[in-house]
């Protein structure tokens, strides 16, 4: 090992120590980055990185879609769109056994189509779907498990903040990434519904009588969600506007619909903007830290060395891919989904390119992997959020309820690895 390898290793140790002591992840990365760069190159240049790099990150036009997509999700939540999705889904699905659980999944998918985040999707659906399911005697573990799993659709079905950041880091087309998420997202909905049927079919209440009139009337309220999704994804797919512009338009449209329906007043709009900004800030903080940490890694040539090492193992492309995915699953036990993408993708992406995997396809695969981290113990953000809202349901109960969906997720991941065409068929038509 050379001297710079030792500094790099020390850097990682310091990074994890600081993170364990609750230092914000971005700040830990930034400090270790500057410190490591200083130790190898010198303090004046290291501090000079602080002068230029953070300002470049926060004023980067390509990242400005983040605040807009987040704002759109917050506004959609505050205008009650999630409740309408759930009601409409139920009106259509109620003849089936476990109809409320099925409509929770469709409502999660519908909400995911206008919201860029998984945790937000899980949080809002918990408040709406959980009380209903309990009222009709659904067991706690099933009710919370469905919401936790359904919530993960938030970052797979476009728009997705996590996919957008992945695209930025790897210089992959964000529009194509979003489009690539559509089919795997629909597949996820289908497989989740099958899971409800197979794993919990026996314990759930039977269907009710279908009322076509009620079902049709319920559609009157959800057209807005459809309109938003079609306008955003259509605009991106047809190449009429950049993802950033689509995000801004989406946020504005959501706000207008909310105001027109009397759901958003001045107070709600201001609160939504403030919350969206705060959330964006915590993402930008990680991005700032990741850039500074990245310069340190570049100077120690760590990514190149890891690439050489992994490729040198000679396990074949899929063997190496498996190692990377398992590594992400393990890290998912302690790290946030966004933090994992920002911290770890720059390190493994060169390996992936060298092995000849498609960057769009890998984006979907890796997002599905970090998504799994949201519902696996000990740290599963979605599970935590549900637990915060439904205090009387214990964490083990929720983790237990979500287990069948974890198994489905793994099966889906394997399917997408075996049949990349499921991911690639839509984006291929864009070129």
């Amino acid at each position, binding site marked *: 090992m050379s001297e710079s390898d030792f500094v790099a290793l020390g850097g990682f140790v310091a990074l994890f120590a600081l993170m364990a002591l609750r230092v914000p992840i971005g700040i830990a990365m930034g400090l270790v980055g500057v410190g490591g760069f200083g130790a190898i190159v010198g303090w004046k240049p290291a501090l000079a990185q602080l002068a230029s790099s953070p300002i470049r990150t926060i004023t980067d036009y390509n990242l400005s879609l983040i605040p807009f997509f987040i704002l759109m999700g917050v506004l959609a939540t505050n205008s009650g769109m999630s409740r309408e999705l759930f009601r409409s889904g139920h009106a259509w699905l109620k003849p089936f056994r476990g109809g409320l659980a099925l409509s929770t999944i469709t409502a999660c998918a519908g909400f995911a189509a206008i919201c860029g985040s998984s945790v937000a999707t899980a949080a*809002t659906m918990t408040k709406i779907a959980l009380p209903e399911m309990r009222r009709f005697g659904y067991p706690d573990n099933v009710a919370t498990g469905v919401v936790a799993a359904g919530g993960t659709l938030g970052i797979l079905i476009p728009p997705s903040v996590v996919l957008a950041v992945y695209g930025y880091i790897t210089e992959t087309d964000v529009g194509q990434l979003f489009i690539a998420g559509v089919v795997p997202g629909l597949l996820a909905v289908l497989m989740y519904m099958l899971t409800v049927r197979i794993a919990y079919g026996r314990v759930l209440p039977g269907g009710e009588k279908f009322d076509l009139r009620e079902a049709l009337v319920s559609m009157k309220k959800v057209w807005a969600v459809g309109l938003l999704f079609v306008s955003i994804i259509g605009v991106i797919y047809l190449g009429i506007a950049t993802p950033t512009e689509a995000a801004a338009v989406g946020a504005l449209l959501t706000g207008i619909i909310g105001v027109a329906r009397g759901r958003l007043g001045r107070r709600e709009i201001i609160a939504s*903007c403030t919350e969206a900004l705060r959330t964006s800030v915590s993402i930008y903080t990680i991005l700032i830290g990741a850039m500074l940490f990245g310069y340190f890694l570049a100077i120690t040539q760590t990514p190149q060395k890891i690439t050489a090492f992994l490729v040198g193992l000679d396990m074949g492309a899929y063997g190496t891919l498996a190692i990377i995915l398992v590594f992400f699953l393990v890290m998912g036990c302690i790290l946030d989904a966004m933090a994992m993408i920002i911290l770890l993708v720059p390190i493994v992406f060169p390996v992936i390119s060298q092995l000849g995997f498609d960057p769009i396809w890998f984006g979907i695969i890796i997002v599905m992997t970090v998504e799994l981290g949201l519902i696996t113990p000990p740290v599963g953000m979605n599970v935590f959020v549900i637990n915060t809202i439904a205090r009387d349901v214990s964490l083990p109960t929720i983790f237990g309820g979500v287990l069948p969906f974890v198994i489905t997720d793994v099966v889906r991941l394997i399917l997408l690895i075996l049949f990349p065409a499921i991911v690639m068929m839509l984006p291929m038509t864009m070129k």
Partner: protein
Amino acid sequence: MLAALTVVIVASAIGRYGFSTPIPDAFDYSRLLIGAAITWGLASVGFRGSHIKVDLFALMMPPRARRWVDVFAWCVLLFFTVLLCWKMFGRVETTMMNGEGTSDLRMPVWPVMLLIWSGVAAAILTTTAKIVLMAMGYGSLEEHESIDDAAEGASHE
């Protein structure tokens, strides 16, 4: 104020999209203003304590130990913010001296740069305030908002 900025930026982006002739410098100004919104938001998040962080270990500690871990963590944040504020000011200064301008109309960039910088300066104050409050036993760090329970925070469902 943060809210107003966000709305202004949304509006400017809409304007850019709505008219086939781009508004001159909208590109430069919208990205610079987002930068300013972010640093001012940094001040807000520094006070709330809702940065993305690993809460797992801290939550396993007894309350007293956790309080001092939190104070330590926020001292590290303060240290970083002070360094950033100091170095960034140099950047604002060179922008001013070199007369860097926007790409279309060559309007000076430094006033917006100063606005961005002042957000970082405000973050020093809010982070310090948070440390003092926590050390005296008032308040703690919030469990972090992942991509967002923002939704939850603002929700009135």
